[in-house]
């Protein structure tokens, strides 16, 4: 009796283990990839995932695309910036990921370095569709950042540039101050704003990406081009001018430029919401903020941000204040904002390639991109059609926007494209350590130099 009981228990246990092993094997098999099915180039249903553009802008692109390709249905899903990598990684590893997905230069979100293996080489695709000289009309800065080892992983939809400051002119009028042109004036303006109970400048210092932009702009103002040399390993992070830049960054916490508690604030959504709600006079954002110059764009952003009662105002960009008496020209630096790539596992690869090629190289598509003011067009020949763009205040904003866009044509310094993931983290660590007072600027830059491995 006891022996038969033991045998029965052993058999039961063996059954359970076998069932578990079979399940585990089945689960492992689920992860294997299936061959891509190419589909048709002029019809099909494709999905597109990206952290940008905003949903309404994405729908504009799709509507314009469908005028030329009515039988290709594109479903765009905007994934929150902070969640994009967590969502796209398993999606691309599976066989049911998006057909088209965003990628960006550098080691940050949607890193082309990371996802290159999941993307179709678009060079032969575009060459076949557009012609052998297709690269001649593409802005080089857009192409460069999305090409890895000669493989064009994504086509730039447009470029963005950072290094500018966006202001709320109404708050400046209310405080009776003028936009700052120098660091001293910036400090003085902020004192005046503070005395009037207005937030002068908001920095999401909890967000290392935007801290990096700030440090980059300060460094360029002190010693143009030195930042890029340090990133490339041709200059040391302990260079006195870079240490000075970090010292200026630190001083912004104490001299009233950064708001109190900046390290506990995120650029998105906190700073973005406060600026769009009219609570803050200045923020450091890039050319992607142009889209909020339009009445529709601003209203959509405010609504998406859940800010109640806010009304669009005529925001404009100003050059970054000069940090030293040398008064170096205000720097802009940028890359392709994002590119669209075709998933190697897409079952509608041909339709996806049609959409991507259209969005990245077609003049009509790029006109939509340029007119939405989210990005600077990836085609050299395309500029915004101001007759069709309704900004909040045409008299003040159109000229400022034209000046801003014109100033990007000479930019050759990358923003994120040459900063790898590890270096970006090391720069962020240095900024946080200085901001919290845990390290002096010189010690932080010494540690950055050590961490950079250069």
């Amino acid at each position, binding site marked *: *009796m*006891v022996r038969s*009981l033991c045998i*029965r*228990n052993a058999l*039961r246990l063996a*059954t*359970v*283990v076998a*069932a*578990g092993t*079979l*399940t*585990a094997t*089945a*689960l*492992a098999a689920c992860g294997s990839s299936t061959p891509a099915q190419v589909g048709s180039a002029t019809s099909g249903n494709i999905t597109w995932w990206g952290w940008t553009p905003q949903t309404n802008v994405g729908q504009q692109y799709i509507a314009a695309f469908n005028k030329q390709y009515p039988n290709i249905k594109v479903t765009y899903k905007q994934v929150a910036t902070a969640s994009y*990598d*967590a969502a796209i*990684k398993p999606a*691309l*590893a599976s066989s049911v990921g998006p057909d088209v997905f965003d990628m960006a230069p550098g080691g940050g979100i949607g*890193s082309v370095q*990371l*996802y290159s*293996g*999941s993307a179709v080489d678009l060079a032969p695709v575009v060459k076949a569709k557009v012609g052998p000289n297709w690269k001649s009309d593409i802005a080089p800065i857009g192409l460069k950042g999305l090409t890895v080892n000669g493989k064009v992983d994504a086509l730039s939809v447009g470029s963005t540039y950072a290094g500018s400051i966006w202001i709320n002119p109404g708050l400046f009028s209310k405080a009776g101050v003028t936009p700052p042109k120098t660091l001293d004036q910036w400090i003085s303006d902020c004192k005046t704003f503070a005395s009037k109970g207005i937030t002068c400048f908001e920095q999401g*210092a*909890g*967000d290392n990406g935007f801290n990096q932009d700030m440090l980059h702009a300060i460094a360029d103002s002190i010693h143009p081009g030195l930042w890029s040399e340090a990133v490339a390993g041709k200059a040391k992070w302990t260079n006195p001018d870079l240490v000075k830049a970090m010292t200026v960054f630190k001083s912004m916490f104490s001299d009233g430029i950064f*708001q*109190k*508690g*900046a*390290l*506990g*604030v*995120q650029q998105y*959504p*906190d700073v973005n919401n406060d600026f769009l709600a009219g609570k803050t006079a200045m923020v450091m954002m890039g050319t992607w903020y142009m889209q909020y110059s339009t009445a529709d764009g601003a209203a959509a952003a405010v609504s998406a941000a859940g800010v109640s009662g806010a009304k669009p105002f005529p925001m404009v960009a100003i050059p970054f204040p000069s940090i030293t008496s040398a008064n170096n020209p205000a720097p802009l630096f940028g890359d392709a904002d994002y590119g669209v790539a075709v998933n190697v596992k897409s079952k509608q690869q041909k339709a996806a390639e049609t959409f991507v090629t259209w969005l990245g190289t077609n003049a009509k598509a790029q006109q939509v991109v340029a007119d939405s003011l989210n990005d600077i067009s990836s085609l050299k020949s395309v500029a915004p059609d101001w007759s069709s763009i309704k900004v909040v205040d045409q008299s003040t904003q159109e000229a400022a926007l034209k000046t801003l866009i014109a100033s990007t044509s000479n930019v050759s310094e990358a923003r994120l494209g040459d900063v790898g*993931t*590890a270096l970006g*983290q090391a720069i962020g*660590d240095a900024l*946080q*350590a200085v*901001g*919290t007072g*845990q390290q002096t600027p010189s010690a932080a830059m010494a540690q950055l130099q050590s961490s950079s491995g250069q």
Partner: protein
Amino acid sequence: MTIASAPARRRAGKRGGLDRPAATGHRRSGFRPAGYAWILPALVLSVGLIYYSIGYTGYISTLSWNGTSPDPTQVGLHNFTQLFSDHVFWLAAQHTIISFVATFVIQTVLGVVLAVMLHSRPWAGVLYKIVLFVPVVLAPAITAPVFRQIFAANGPLNALLQHVGLGAIAVPWLAQPGTSLMAIIAISIWQWTGMTFILYYAAMGQIDPEVLEAAELDGAGNVRKLVSIVWPSLRGTTIALLTLSAIGSLKTFDIPWLVTVGGPDYSTEFFGTMIYRQSIILSQVGYGAAISVMVILLALVMGVAINVRPWRSRAAAGAS
């Protein structure tokens, strides 16, 4: 629950109860064939999904891999040696211990006190129970931005402190390494005290009222009854909450990530945020897996340590 077979039922009927020993004198086996049929699906899912995932994570922890490359590099235990020399790992460990001790102690005190108060049947007691439990069911994604506003330098908390004359402690809570962890712990306590309260409330309901009445007749006051009768009776619940708090602290992620992103300067970094940062943002999936393996091992050690026999004996004594 098992269903006895017909012969067993006949034997039970003759002898007057299923709990009497069989005629052979051997103890009846607790296994019934029908039991496995009920638990097999869940067991298969558990073994297949959870333990397979743990095993695969262990394998990945021996790789240098970005999560997408088809050619990961085998590095053996390198990720673990790197982990032990990573100051952020030790910071996360420190924060986990502090968070565990603070949240467990404060939640236990609050849970017991609130349960005692609500056992006195105040007016609108049901409403109080609901209010206390609501934070437990709120999603961190909703509460995190709200708390970022509350703890902001010019937020409502500081406004309240200034209003009551405590402006000296109205600091930017989330922007300073010295106070950011306190803020995260406060949010966790706010979120989970309701769970502690409900469990203690239920446990107190099991205490025989006659024991309390007898103590009262003997002259014991409320505090004496709480300390000498109620608290010892709650030992089993306390041990269970201790285990849950320990494991919960090890896997803390949502609140620190959504409120402070583990900052400023890693001052609110936990194992969960470190795993996410390494695996997703820095694409160091192998290293993130190594941290995960360490968390599993720590959870096992803590679970065993908390549930060893001496504790269980005292819990059994307290419950009887």
